[in-house]
């Protein structure tokens, strides 16, 4: 069971969270102008790295806030958790 640092509440058990998939995806503002193919990429295409991954989590059984995280998909190590709107941290080397 992961230990996840909510940017507000601090480290909490994974039980309190729900993963919201890839992070730093912004809803298209010009969606009506883009092609179906482009829109499908926005809707469905996601990174699936073996390694560091920018993702979103929701502290659903806690403060109900959404936040961002950088997690390693193999080791489950969290490099960072940060509030929405805060800059995307650089990935650690390795």
């Amino acid at each position, binding site marked *: 069971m992961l230990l996840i640092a909510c940017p*507000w*509440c601090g480290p*909490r*058990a994974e*039980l*309190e969270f729900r993963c919201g998939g890839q992070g730093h995806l912004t809803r298209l503002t010009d969606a009506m102008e883009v092609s179906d193919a482009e829109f499908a990429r926005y809707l469905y295409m996601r990174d699936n790295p073996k390694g560091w991954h920018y993702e979103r989590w929701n502290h659903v*059984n*806690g*403060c109900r*806030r959404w936040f961002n995280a950088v997690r390693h998909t193999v080791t489950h190590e969290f490099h960072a958790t940060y509030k929405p709107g805060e800059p995307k941290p650089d990935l650690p080397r390795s």
Partner: protein
Amino acid sequence: MDSKGMADAIPRLGALDHLGLAARAHGEKGAAGVRLAERRFLAKLNLRGDPNDHGFMGAVASVLDGFEPRIIPNTAVHTGRFDLLWLGPDEWLVVAADGAEAELEARLTAAVAPHGGTVTDVSESRTTIVVSGPNARDVLAKGCPLDLHPRAFAAGACAQSLVAKVGVILHRTDTAAPGEPARFELHALRSFADYLWRFLDDAGQEYGVTVMEG
């Protein structure tokens, strides 16, 4: 009779009334390691606002005995009449005595609305289960992933988490005075209250469980 007066005469049903807790309650604390009680119908208001807005913070303080909401996560203040629990970066729970909600909601709303604050009455959404006694932490540890050790969860701490899969707002309400056993208030959604109570009652059997007056 005005409508409020009539409403006062309407029988109210608490979330745990079917358990007959009042009849089971013992006045004395006894030797049991775990003491359980329900505090029915506490007034509870969900308060939202911007903690960086001095106007908002001052407006809250003007109603709540001069106390501003805490900006430190997972902490609560006790004003004497009210408990003010941090729930999120712009969200707090105000807990007050049974029956206080209508007037308090009106006064708080009037105070915070000009500063973009909002107040929502959630008194009926949750009931309050009190877990206290020498083994209070032990019984909670059987269902709650939070670290409730005094070093991690000091007197006055509060948190939202799970107890036995049930979402709760936990509030440690003892003062950590020497010899004073830990006391936790669990504000739990009304619909889950029966399950949560039965879980705590069952998990506490190892230590002995006494039902107390709320």
